[in-house]
């Protein structure tokens, strides 16, 4: 069975658990969690991830900054990144896509939409 490493970067433990809970429904999914961008970079240096789900508004390092670092790093540049945000504003979405996000999901996150986006980006067929 194929294994997929997903990194969930979210400062809210509730949202982090909810996203992880949703991702666990994908067969072979292994979830790592980080509370902010700094923690995420540390995890990225330790494990090879198939996908990153990152919130935009986080302390220490927000999701957009994390995204720009990921895209500039040749070791991680190819990792698909989904950005999530409470803000419904298009500005976040646009900024995210400009920085190289693969998908944008507004909160409250719909599990079906999250799973659909993940499966498309990682090319998982179930």
């Amino acid at each position: 069975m194929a294994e997929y490493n997903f990194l969930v970067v979210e400062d809210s433990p509730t949202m982090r658990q909810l996203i992880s809970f949703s991702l666990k429904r994908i067969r072979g999914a292994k979830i790592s969690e980080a509370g902010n961008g700094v923690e995420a970079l540390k995890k990225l240096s330790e494990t090879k991830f198939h996908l990153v789900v990152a919130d935009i508004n986080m302390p220490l390092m927000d999701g957009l900054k994390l995204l720009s670092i990921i895209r500039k790093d040749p070791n991680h540049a190819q990792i698909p990144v989904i950005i999530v945000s409470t803000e419904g504003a298009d500005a976040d979405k646009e900024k995210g896509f400009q920085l190289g996000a693969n998908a944008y999901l507004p909160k409250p996150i719909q599990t079906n939409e999250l799973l659909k986006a993940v499966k498309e980006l990682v090319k998982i067929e179930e």
Partner: protein
Amino acid sequence: MEKPESSADLFKKTREFLDIFRKGEEFTQELLKENERLRYKTVQLEEETRTIKKGTEGSHISELREALKQVEQEKEALLNRFKEVEAENKDFATKYIEVEEENNNLANLYVASYQLHSTLDFNEVLRILQEIVINLVGSDRFAIMVLDEVTNELTSVAAEGMDEKRIKKVKVGEGVIGDVARTGESYFEPDVEGFKPAHEMDPLVCIPLKIKDRIIGVLAIFSLLEQKSKKLSRVDYELFSMLAGHAATAIFSSKLYSVSERKLSTIQGFIDLLSGKGL
């Protein structure tokens, strides 16, 4: 030189010739009769052959017709079964979507209740409750109000999108919020999309935080996030109903815990004082 034939000879020859001719005639007559008989027989046989052929063809066609009828019936039966299977398929697909939705809803409810009961710190409980309302319900303006049983007033203890300190206290029975605290019944604005509050404290949704029949506060939601499309789904109502119970228990437990912690610390202080440790 040949001797000339006598008339008697000639007569004899003539008779012989006539006999031969007669026999020939008789034979011809017989042949004609036979020919007629054979022609009749041929016609008869042809007629019989035609009848036989006709009969054979007829039964073959009817057999084919029967087979065709059966095939048609089988085709009809298969088409009906196909329609049934298609309908079943659609039904299964609908059920699958429903189960998926239910699964997602249960996951949301599980995470919400798990998080609410993950701490006994009052402020942490309020923070988690705020997170749930923002991230799961999708509200950007709401207040959590706790009932003071002495003054019979609801006071805001946490808020999002509004200044908590500026939120006025609400008497039980006063306005929509006060009425929810009085009756213990949730309030849902019927026209979420066209909701225009007449007053700042008019909520879109107001749910009582209650443990059994005891009201300990309310959660008043004043607006929803843009992406919620200004409508509430079934899971929102389920979440509200879950929040009414779990948030109340979590708030109540954490308050009780902090009170008991304070009391414990006071008692410990006394014990220390009495045992001379505090000196």
